[in-house]
Structure formats: structure tokens, C-alpha cells
């Protein structure tokens, strides 16, 4: 399984925070790719093997819901683990995202350990890391 991560968020600040969280948590990843909208994300996915995608919903050009729909239609991408990191809290929206393949949801503003707990089952931790596991209450579907 690829340990490359694709972070999709129109905020460069959030992309950096996600990356920093992964480092602090000692998550076992190789390369990080970034995209600021769904179109860029699809381009990255076409060019690189990725093991997990962290996706925001509210983005210009192509939003997160549209991206998940497109990924679901692609046989190469439809089983890719997707973690949603979004500001939205609608139950209907979360159900919709699960339907489109999301396996975890972290609501902004998220604590670092919440994102860590969502990604750890997918990536694992590096051998010399000392990340602590704990259920902080966010959904894992």
C-alpha cells in the first residue's frame, strides 16, 4: 500500500497544519502531495500513487463532494481511503460523504490528536514514534 498522502484544501495554512500534525504524531508516511481544489487533486491522483486523501469540502472550482463523486466513478480511485477535514456539521452531508467513500470525518477546528486518530489506522506510526492512541470522539465510519 502506498504511504503517500494527498492533502486537498484551498487553505495553504490548513495544508501546513495537517502536514505538521502528521509529523508530530509520528505517522508513517512517505511523500505528501497537495492540491487546492478537486481539479488539482484529480491531477495529482493521476500522476502519483497515493495511500490516503485528506479532503476539505468548501473549495472553489471543484469542491470536496464533487471530488469524492469523481473518485467513486474511477475504478483506480474508488477504494482509496478518504478522510474528510471540514468545517461542516450537517448529518445529511456526512451521510452523503460516507456514501461517496469517506472513511473518517474530522471537524474543524480539529485537535491534532483527532486527525492523528483518523489517519493512524490507515498509515500506522513510524517505529521510533511515541504517538499515543485514544478515542477523542470523532467519527470513524
Amino acid at each position, binding site marked *: 500500500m502506498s504511504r503517500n498522502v494527498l492533502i486537498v484544501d484551498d487553505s495553504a495554512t490548513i495544508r501546513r*497544519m495537517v502536514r505538521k500534525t502528521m509529523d508530530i504524531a509520528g505517522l508513517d508516511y512517505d511523500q505528501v502531495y497537495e492540491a487546492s481544489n478537486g481539479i488539482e487533486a484529480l491531477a495529482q491522483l493521476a500522476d502519483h500513487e497515493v495511500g490516503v486523501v485528506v479532503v476539505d469540502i468548501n*473549495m*472553489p472550482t471543484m469542491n470536496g463532494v464533487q471530488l469524492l463523486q469523481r473518485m467513486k466513478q474511477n475504478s483506480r480511485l474508488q477504494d482509496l481511503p478518504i478522510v474528510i477535514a471540514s468545517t*461542516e*456539521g*450537517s*448529518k445529511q452531508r456526512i451521510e452523503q460523504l460516507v456514501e461517496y467513500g469517506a472513511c473518517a470525518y474530522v471537524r474543524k*477546528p480539529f485537535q491534532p490528536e483527532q486527525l492523528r486518530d483518523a489517519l493512524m489506522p490507515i498509515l500506522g506510526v513510524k517505529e521510533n514514534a511515541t504517538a499515543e492512541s485514544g478515542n477523542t470522539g470523532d467519527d470513524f465510519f
Partner: protein
Amino acid sequence: MPQQRAATLATIFSDVLADLAFMFTDDAHEDPAADDPWLETSIGYRGKYNGDLHFRCTRSFTYLLAANLLGAEPGGEDAVNSADDAAKEFMNIVCGQLVTALHGSEDIFNLTIPEISTMTETPDLSLDDGDNVSTISAEGHRIQLIFQRGATDA
């Protein structure tokens, strides 16, 4: 209730500021420098109810916000270059939380893409009508929050 709206907005703003940037609202503030421009970051939500949110602060506050989000130096290149993005993303998060607080989590709401612009003049900071305008202080900086209800808003 209108008064709950302004209080809710201020509370959510304060909570997100603390959770995301480890910054805190307080009563103390300094008068903004004359050469410190005011910025307005705007975002809206659309759905069963509509609303628009405006966040007014000085440029120097956006540098501070970005620095805290990124763990960088407030006056450093990193914070300066990330300031606009930090303010927009901050309001994206505040808006999402506010929608849930005001309208619950049953309906789907779409947020607009946040926008930031420089204000042509200093806002009237005495304006705090307890209804849709709230003026607070954070880390010594004055901040004004405005909520505009849409025609279909409750």
C-alpha cells in the same frame, strides 16, 4: 432571538480563536496605529436559511493570527505571506460552527468561498448593537464581527 445571535457569534469566534490559534479575547486593547489598515473578511452560508458574516480587524492582527496558526514569528515572512489565507480559513471555520449553533445539524448548508479586502476607512468601533454587531478585543487588538441575516433567515 437577535441578542442571542450576536452573543453566539462572539462566543464562537472566541472559542475558535482559542482552539485553533491559542489566542484569547479580553477586555484590554490598544488603539490601532494610523498606518495599520483595516481588513474585512466575508463569508456566507446558503440553504434553508441564509446569512453573511463579516470579520473586521487590522492587518497586524492577521499577521498575529497567521503566526499563531503556523507556529511562526508574527513579523516574519511566513506569517506575512500567510495572513490573508489564515483570516479566510479562520472565518470559514467560524461560519461552519455558527451555522450549526444557529440552525442545527439536520439541514445541509453551503458556505461561500471567503473573501478578504482592505477597508477604505476605519470601522466605527463604537458600534455594538447587541443584535448583529459585536466588537471585541483579542490579544490587545480590536475586532468587529457583523452578522447579516438573509431574507429567509430565521
